[in-house]
């Protein structure tokens, strides 16, 4: 039996993507460079790459501390390749825990001053695994509506009741905690830095409310590790409440400069997660070179006060420079190493993104559903290795591109 065209169309599982396919077709038919298909042909340093044959300043990499080309970090990876091979070919709980996996977990425990550290193969899997495993049937997860996709997916994978509240709204969070039935387990999920607009959470106030209602608190510090706080432990450290956080989630793919994810905790029963957390158990562990580069990088980040200070200077300078030239930014004041430039719509956002690329500048084009309130954003993430001169060059590129596209 053969199906008619109409039947084929109705049962094609890809029909659901038609609106997105059409939106992409319309955008690319204008002849614009595809913003989601750029290739870095050569990477010269944490802040410069070659794209389309042109030397390009990188301002959208999350490489906050510029550790990707640190000589000690690179050397540790090369040595590990020689000594341990290219991969572990196994789960952490079987043949996939090497000396390097232990070493990076030791480094994390020291970095945060916590009792336990558990390393996952990506940051996404860290959220997926921890959230879906600790919040089960009958428990309640109370989370910020602007949470990262990995947090939402962790909620979806578990069996807990999921209750979102308005972004950074302490009262809205409190109301929801108050209404949870007595006796139910509660997990509050917050982020230190929200990566789309680059704003931070009032963790001190929110964690106090969460604790008053008997909730455990998980804070994702992916975008603050290494940079924010006196020791680079994140926004919770900066606000003096790190000791109140039950679970810190983080990643190696930003300040640490490689790939991987982790959770640190002081919970006395934490180690049992290694046996029950499926995204930890049922996947291969990180390659030896990755965990050795991560361990070396984390230890260097403990003593990176000067780099942190320079990164703050870069953030202040870029925020002030773009504001002065008439751009609308995601935050009134610089709160992190992310400066988000709000675009009027996707079309002009894509035009501005391309104009910047022609100037020799790479930023992230972010659009719904990743962005809040349907916004199109040009997201800039600064690096401690951007020189003061590079930041001035960047401001000049934005000014020319913005004028050419008619945004300022």
């Amino acid at each position, binding site marked *: 039996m053969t199906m008619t065209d109409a039947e084929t169309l109705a049962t094609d599982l890809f029909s659901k993507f038609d609106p997105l396919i059409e939106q992409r077709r319309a955008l690319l038919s204008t002849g614009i460079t595809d913003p989601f298909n750029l290739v870095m042909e050569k990477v010269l340093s944490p802040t410069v790459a070659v794209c389309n044959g042109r030397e390009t300043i990188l301002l959208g990499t999350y490489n906050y501390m510029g550790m990707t080309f640190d000589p000690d970090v690179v050397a540790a990876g090369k040595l590990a390749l020689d000594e341990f091979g290219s991969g572990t070919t196994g789960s952490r709980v079987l043949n996939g825990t090497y000396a390097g996996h232990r070493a990076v977990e030791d480094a994390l425990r020291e970095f945060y001053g916590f009792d336990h550290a558990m390393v996952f193969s990506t940051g996404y899997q860290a959220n997926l695994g921890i959230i879906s495993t600790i919040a089960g049937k009958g428990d*309640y997860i109370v989370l910020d*509506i602007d949470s990262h996709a990995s947090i939402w997916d962790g*909620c979806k994978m578990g069996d807990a*009741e*999921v*209750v*979102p*509240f*308005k972004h950074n709204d302490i009262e*809205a969070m409190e*109301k*929801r905690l108050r*209404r*949870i039935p007595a006796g139910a387990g509660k997990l509050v999920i917050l982020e230190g830095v929200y990566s789309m607009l680059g704003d931070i959470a009032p963790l001190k106030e929110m964690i106090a409310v969460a604790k008053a209602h008997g909730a455990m608190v998980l804070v994702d510090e992916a975008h603050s590790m290494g940079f924010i706080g006196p020791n680079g432990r994140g926004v919770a450290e900066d606000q003096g409440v790190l000791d109140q956080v039950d679970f810190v989630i983080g990643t190696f793919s930003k300040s640490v400069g490689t790939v991987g994810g982790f959770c640190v905790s002081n919970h006395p029963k934490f180690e049992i997660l290694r046996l029950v957390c499926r995204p930890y158990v049922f996947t291969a562990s990180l390659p030896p070179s990755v965990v050795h580069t991560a361990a070396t990088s984390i230890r260097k980040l403990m003593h990176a006060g000067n780099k942190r200070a320079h990164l703050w200077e870069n953030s202040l300078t870029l925020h002030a420079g773009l504001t002065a030239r008439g751009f609308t930014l995601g935050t009134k004041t610089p709160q992190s190493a992310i400066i988000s430039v709000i675009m009027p719509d996707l079309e002009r956002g894509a035009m501005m993104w391309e104009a910047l690329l022609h100037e020799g500048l790479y930023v992230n084009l972010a659009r719904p559903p990743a962005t*809040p*309130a*349907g916004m199109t954003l040009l997201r800039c993430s600064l690096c401690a290795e951007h020189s003061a001169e590079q930041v001035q060059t960047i401001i000049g590129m934005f000014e020319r591109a913005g004028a050419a596209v008619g945004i300022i």
Partner: protein
Amino acid sequence: MDRADTSARIADLIAPFNKKGIIITDAVTFAGDLEWDSLTVMDFVAAIEDEFDIIISMNQQAEIETYGQLVDAVTRLRG
């Protein structure tokens, strides 16, 4: 409290979100007829939760597509 009372109070709450002026019946759908996006849904759910002092978790919201289903769910949650 009975269903009619719940329905009347929800009808009052829905008005500021009903930008298209759709006539509200039990069969009206939030996504289809009212064309609400996720942010509007969140604000509306928050208004309902505050009015009745209840939680409508996302798991429960996934089962609610029409106005009538919402009234039933709120009536049930109020106990």
